[in-house]
């Protein structure tokens, strides 16, 4: 992590798998080349470790420990990163003492240029090897440890960047600081503006959250045409009669490209499931409140499996083997989806 001012936080944990499908990720190939390169070289702390900053920190945190006061005071170990922060200074310059490397600047620049302009901090792992005392001069070096593939989170789509910093006091290693940020493209601008407008006008009417729209293309158009007629269609290879789902251009068994369809009877059982607790997606929660909801892998009577929601029972009553029956749910005026109703009432 560069030692600058980019520390934030938010709902940045990865979202449900249904949001995460990303076909090609060419940017990742370019970003991942930066792993192992320096993030900061020979950075120096803006100020030596000092009693006033320690006191301000303790006052803010409500930390009354006597270890951080008096003639033998040490700095709270959790201040480690604070000593490396640039503070309220202008845009980075080569000699601004932050030591930020050209490589790290390029990496962030690539992300900014691709629209991933926002940043939040998600993880901080620190190890403290020796106490910091007033007067200690801080220096640091950091490396870009890794860049993730593109991930979709509640905040938006982006890339996690992990850096690891060695912090030295008077030249001696005093601590290590691993830091992870999400560089992302905000996903909720519209909804935030709406919330903001609501605050200003005291308007309380609430728009329902909408589910994401399906991406319909030549390979799956037949499936969605079936849904529109309330038929769940499974592809069948006309060469070897193997059923397949989800829809694909070719047969995984014989590589045949010719196919027809079989309409699912609608009977199935829960093969596996997960419960989505956080972050909340109000559109997926039957109550619209964003509470937990179950995402199940349904094994249809025909033998293929499909991901979907289970209705008719609370999320915590979904279990492996639960018999379900297909039905179609209109989630909003423009979207209808196959869902699966538990057929034994719990």
């Amino acid at each position: 992590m560069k030692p600058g001012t980019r520390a934030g936080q938010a709902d940045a944990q990865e979202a449900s798998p249904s949001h995460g499908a990303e076909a090609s990720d060419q940017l990742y190939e370019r970003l991942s080349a930066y792993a192992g390169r320096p993030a900061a070289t020979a950075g120096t702390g803006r100020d030596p470790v000092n009693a006033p900053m320690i006191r301000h920190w303790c006052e803010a945190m409500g930390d009354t420990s006597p270890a951080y006061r008096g003639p033998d005071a040490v700095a709270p170990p959790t201040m480690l990163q604070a000593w490396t922060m640039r503070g309220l200074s202008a845009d980075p310059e080569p000699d601004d003492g932050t030591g930020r490397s050209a490589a790290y600047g390029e990496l962030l620049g690539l992300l900014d240029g691709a629209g991933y302009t926002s940043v939040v901090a998600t993880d901080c792992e620190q190890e403290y090897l020796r106490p910091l005392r007033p007067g200690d001069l801080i220096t640091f070096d950091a490396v870009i440890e890794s860049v993730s593939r593109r991930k979709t989170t509640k905040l938006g789509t982006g890339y996690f960047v992990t850096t690891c910093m060695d912090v030295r006091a008077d030249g001696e290693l005093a601590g290590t600081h691993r830091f992870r940020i999400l560089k992302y493209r905000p996903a909720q601008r519209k909804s935030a503006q709406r919330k903001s407008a609501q605050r200003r006008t005291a308007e309380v009417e609430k728009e329902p959250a909408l589910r994401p729209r399906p991406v319909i293309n030549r390979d799956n158009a037949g499936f969605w045409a079936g849904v529109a007629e309330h038929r769940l269609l499974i592809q069948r290879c006309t060469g070897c009669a193997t059923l397949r789902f989800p829809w694909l251009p070719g047969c995984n068994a014989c590589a045949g490209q010719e196919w027809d369809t079989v309409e699912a009877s609608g009977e199935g059982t829960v093969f596996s499931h997960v419960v989505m607790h956080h972050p909340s997606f109000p559109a997926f929660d039957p109550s619209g409140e964003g509470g937990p909801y179950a995402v199940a892998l349904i094994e249809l009577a025909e033998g293929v499996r499909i991901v979907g929601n289970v209705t008719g029972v609370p999320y915590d009553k979904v279990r492996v083997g639960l018999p379900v029956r297909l039905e179609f749910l209109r989630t909003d005026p423009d979207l209808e989806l196959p869902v699966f109703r538990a057929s034994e009432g719990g």
Partner: protein
Amino acid sequence: MTEAYRVGDELPPLEIPVTRTLIVAGAIASRDYQDVHHDAELAREKGSPDIFMNILTTNGLVGRYITDHFGSAAVLRKVAIRLGAPNYPGDVLRLTGRIVALEDVALEGENRSLIEVAVTGDNRIGRHVTGKVTVAIPVAIPGAIPGAVTVAITEGGGA
């Protein structure tokens, strides 16, 4: 007279009101001038409903929670946190902790108990923070530590 720490012990919860003052003071004390930590209008423009606490403040509060409990002779060795639901003004952060590992080691020639605590912090939105903290406390200094304990000596730290 001393009460031994044991794996599985729960720390008393600590509830911290998340005031606007705490968020701003924590950001400035950590030299973090990102506008989302002090300017509500700019935070909203960036898609956040309000300003929110920065990760350094959460880190500091987690550290304080542990040293408040184990006493001023306790020294933090590791703090690792992951953030989830943001801390917005008006919320309350409720920190809880549970001892998950204990061992005695020699550090710089002195015997210490290394205690690893799993920490969680919840607010009304959900889980704000999950983390693990390793803290070293002196062993058998009469009266200094309310609960020093000696357990089997093993190598290495936790987390």
